[in-house]
């Protein structure tokens, strides 16, 4: 097997292409990764920070949303680095800050009061136990093309047209 010298243009170009392929894959993953941020406006358990009684919160360039004590809402964002702008109605103070989300963490809890009070870390991971999916779906429905003699569906069901995607 003659040694594949890197000078041979074909090999050179093909290996560069492979690198580009992997690079783009990674970039897409990073920039496209979707995270859900739960924006929270509650009092701390130990009273170290209190809910803000009226503010508007804006993440990146999404339109701002109003929060009152006890509210919790979520914002969907792509990618890791984001900015947050909080404007408190009562005294009009504006807090701005940027943060980075860990790649692997799908959902995080951002407590605005903590942010305002300057307590770090105001973001902590949040994992939710998925409640069991509603009806346990069995295997694939018998497509038009195969299956044959599976037990006939319920008596009264109208003739189901084959699942045709329009």
């Amino acid at each position, binding site marked *: 097997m003659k040694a594949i010298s890197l000078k041979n243009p074909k090999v050179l170009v093909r290996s560069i292409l492979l690198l580009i392929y992997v690079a*783009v894959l990674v970039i*897409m993953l990073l920039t*496209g*990764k979707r995270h859900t941020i739960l924006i929270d406006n509650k009092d701390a358990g130990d009273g170290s920070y209190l809910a803000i009684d009226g503010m508007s919160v804006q993440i990146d360039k999404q339109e701002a949303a109003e929060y009152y004590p006890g509210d919790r809402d979520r914002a969907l964002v792509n990618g890791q680095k984001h900015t947050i702008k909080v404007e408190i109605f009562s005294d009009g103070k504006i807090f701005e800050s940027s943060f980075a989300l860990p790649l692997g963490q799908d959902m995080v809890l951002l407590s605005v009061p903590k942010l305002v009070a300057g307590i770090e870390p105001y973001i902590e991971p949040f994992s939710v136990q998925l409640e069991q999916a509603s009806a346990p779906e069995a295997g694939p429905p018998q497509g038009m093309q195969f299956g044959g003699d599976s037990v006939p569906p319920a008596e009264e069901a109208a003739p189901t047209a*084959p699942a045709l995607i329009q």
Partner: protein
Amino acid sequence: MSAKKSIGKFISDYAVLIIFTVITLAAISPSGLSISYIIQEVITRLGRNSFLVLALLLPIFAGMGLNFGMTLGAMAGQIGLIFAVNWSVAGWQGLVFAVLIGLPISVFLGWICGAVMNKAKGREMVTGYILAFFINGIYQFFVLYMMGSVIPIRNAAILLSRGYGIRNTLNLESVRQSLDNIFMLKVGPFLVPVITFVIIALLCVFIVWFKRTKLGQDMRAVGQDMVVADAAGIPVEKTRIIAIIISTVLACVGQIIFLQNMGNLATYNAHDQTGFFAVAAILVGGASVKRASIANVFIGVVLLHAMFIVSPLAGQRLFGSAMIGEYFRQFIGYGAIALSLVLYAWKSRKAADDARSGLRHGASGNGNGAGGQA
């Protein structure tokens, strides 16, 4: 040739096209749909389906008939999407991510399909069709049993309740319309997904450019006469496999474009109809097993889908049940494929007989005049 003969030839060449136009126009009024609604629907469907139908062109050039095996590409695309949703990569980046994951899979499946078709020369279409079901079995094994158990799936929301296997319908919310919405242009009352059409235009440019390359020329030569191409030293088997690989890869990308427009993925059924729709569209557009052009693709998509929009409602109005309209459009879809295949096979047999009779005319130059044989 006399005018009558050329008209006859035109009719027999575009029989399916004519029948379809007549039916669609006839069904528009009873369906009660407004023209602008129909036009808007056709625009979205053009964006959604044309890429898939264009994927059929190359195998036709290479003389392998209608590539029913493109379903393999659709499956690869769907696996790409499943991984995109699994790592919750959203927006248009999710689509690119899905394409990049699906690419190597579709190349591999395309290679298998090409190799199998080479072993069944003369019966490529039916072999492609059966191969699609065979690989569908393996796809189902992979997606329904391996995913979650052997292949780690981090996003539990897409798994079946039993812990492994992907659910029957997958919500593509994160990538929904992400390609179309990048630049949705409002032209009068209509919304036109410009970027999608740009990508489709790019594919058309690639196909036109590809026909001018040496590989494109070899494909056309192999498509016309495999024996002569082989005698001239063209690697016939390799060329046919490349044609199928490209077609499968395009089908993979096309299916991703299709599903991002639909917004949800019927994991185990979405690919069944891909082949049927694409083949029906290109045949309705006037293409045949041996000859097809880009124009056939677009005419076909417009006509087939226009008919598919109006017929259920027309059925409702005329026969009083939407089901009839629903079955009617299925019948028309399959009928279009059957009719154009029959016309093509009948015409090529007739052409062979004419060629021979031309020779005969020369032979019976004397004696009892031109042979008026049966």
